[in-house]
């Protein structure tokens, strides 16, 4: 679906096997003026549900019955292979940069990977759902932190100032310039400056599009 058209009431699909969490998610989405069009608690049903055309974003647990491995993730990746840019936000109980990478590799944005704990910050979570539905990329700060921390010490990352590093982290989480500016209490213009400084220092191709920007940063962090 084109990212430009955001319906007034977002329609969500929820896949989560724990009844408690499923109820919590549905409650939060409904309290935030979204409509939950389908709830499923296992992989086969999720695969069926992902073929529907009447949802704007799918919120999927990584681990689902029957085998409790990574069916949710696999179903999401498969659905996005069939329908590019199908908006999917994956929730996980664990930080697994590997899963995040698989998701991002399914290309074209409209994708997110968050820890379940993030849902507790309702406004942040709802904003993330909306961002994915609008075609953006959302990555959990923990995953990004893991990627940043995992970079080798002799890397050009050390050439970044502390402020630039903050911006890089927020950018990797998939936030827009405006959001980063709001976070750091600086002007959007200042953020733009920081970003081009970062791209120059890290030798990254300058990209205007949010998603490509995130992917470039992630690809950089993973090398």
């Amino acid at each position, binding site marked *: 679906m084109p990212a430009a058209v955001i319906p007034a009431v977002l329609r969500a699909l929820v896949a989560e096997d724990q009844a408690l*969490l499923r109820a919590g998610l549905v409650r*939060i989405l409904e309290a935030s003026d979204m409509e939950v069009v389908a709830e499923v608690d296992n992989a086969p049903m999720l695969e069926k549900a992902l073929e529907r055309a009447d949802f704007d974003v799918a919120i999927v647990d990584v681990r689902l019955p029957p085998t409790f491995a990574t069916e949710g993730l696999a179903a999401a990746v498969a659905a996005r292979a069939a329908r590019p840019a199908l908006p999917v936000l994956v929730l996980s*109980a664990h930080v697994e940069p590997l899963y995040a990478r698989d998701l991002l590799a399914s290309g074209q944005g409209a994708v997110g990977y968050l820890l379940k704990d993030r*849902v507790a910050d*309702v406004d942040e979570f709802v904003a993330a759902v909306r961002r994915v539905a609008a075609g953006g990329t959302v990555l959990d700060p923990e995953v990004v932190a893991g990627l940043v921390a995992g970079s080798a010490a002799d890397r050009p990352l050390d050439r970044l100032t502390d402020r630039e590093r903050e911006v890089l982290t927020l950018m990797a989480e998939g936030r827009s310039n405006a959001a980063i500016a709001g976070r750091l209490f600086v002007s959007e213009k200042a953020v733009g400056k920081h970003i081009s400084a970062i791209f120059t220092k890290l030798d990254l191709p300058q990209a205007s599009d949010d998603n490509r920007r995130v992917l470039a940063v992630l690809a950089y962090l993973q090398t």
Partner: protein
Amino acid sequence: MPSPIRTVAPGPVDERGLVDRVRWSAVGLADFLLFVPSVVLFVLSLLCVGLGPLGVGFALAHLVVPATERLSALHRRIAGDLLSDDLPAAYADTDGRGFLGTPLVWLRDPARWRDVGHLAFSMSGGAVLSGLPALLLVAPLVHLGGFVLQRTAVWGLLLAVGLVCPLVWWLVTPALIRARALADRGILAGGRVERLEQRVADVEATRTESLDHSAAEVRRIERDLHDGAQARIAAVGMNVGLAEKLLATDPAAAAALLREARETTVSALEDLRSVVRGIHPPALADRGLAGGIEALALPIPLPVTVTVDAPALPPPVESAAYFAVAECLANTVKHAGATRAWVRVRHDGRSLHLVVGDDGVGGADPSGTGLAGVARRLAAFDGTLAVDSPAGGGTVVTMELPCPLP
């Protein structure tokens, strides 16, 4: 089946001693009579080797060797029953070696040669050992018969000797029969190398099982945490987050969400506690095996007598013993319909003995998943488990864990 010979001391002259000795004499007589096939097979075995180069030996071997194996198996069983020991055969593998290849494997297999050696023993010294008790029993009758038919001085002398025979029979029968069984075991039950090989194979098998078991345990713990405490705490976070959002607009709904969150934290803590109990029970950690088993017995809905007389043992042994007793008591509660149960634990300096009993309906199946699992876990420590559970007669599970004190 003969009773095992536990001692060769004369013992009291009672019905039990008499019945046992008659049985042993009968077994000895059977063993003695087996000298006939032994002679035949021994000669044929030598022929096999002699005729091997002519090719006839190959065909003959296919008849002789399996027959010898059967005879050896019979001797093994008799000796095993007499010594209450298990004497496994350990022949070299001949799978897929074909008609000509198989005899060549037999030719190189020390176990087959020991069989042949045993044939030689069974038709000589072995036959003497086994036959004597029966002979001593029958001799007086023969002598009496001879004396009645022809009253000569010789028969009179023999009769006098014959009168001593029963006494001699009473004294020497256990020793003779046991000596034969020991010799059979010595010849047939493999040399030191085979026994060590068998032992290594056993250790490898139990090690693999232990590793599989601990991997499965770790997976189970991970699943328990993921599905229990972790999910509940995440749900608490969601409820609290939503309540925070609704606080201004809908205080009543926010209060309901907070109450739900508080209740969920209680069950999350319960989950965590049960996971911890499954990993390492606090009572066991704090108060050793005695405390751990008492803690096990407390919540059980029937009176359980616990006596523990054991020093502090290495933690893995204590843990294995604890979970073994836990499984047995759980079975008692689930299946036995008992009115009381008891747990006796004692350490005799060499091994830890665990007995878990109840007065329930019996009929417990030792190959059931629970008990079989316990047996497998104990096997990792060279431990054993025996179940005595006649239908209607209660259940007694006896476990032994070798565990010498440092």
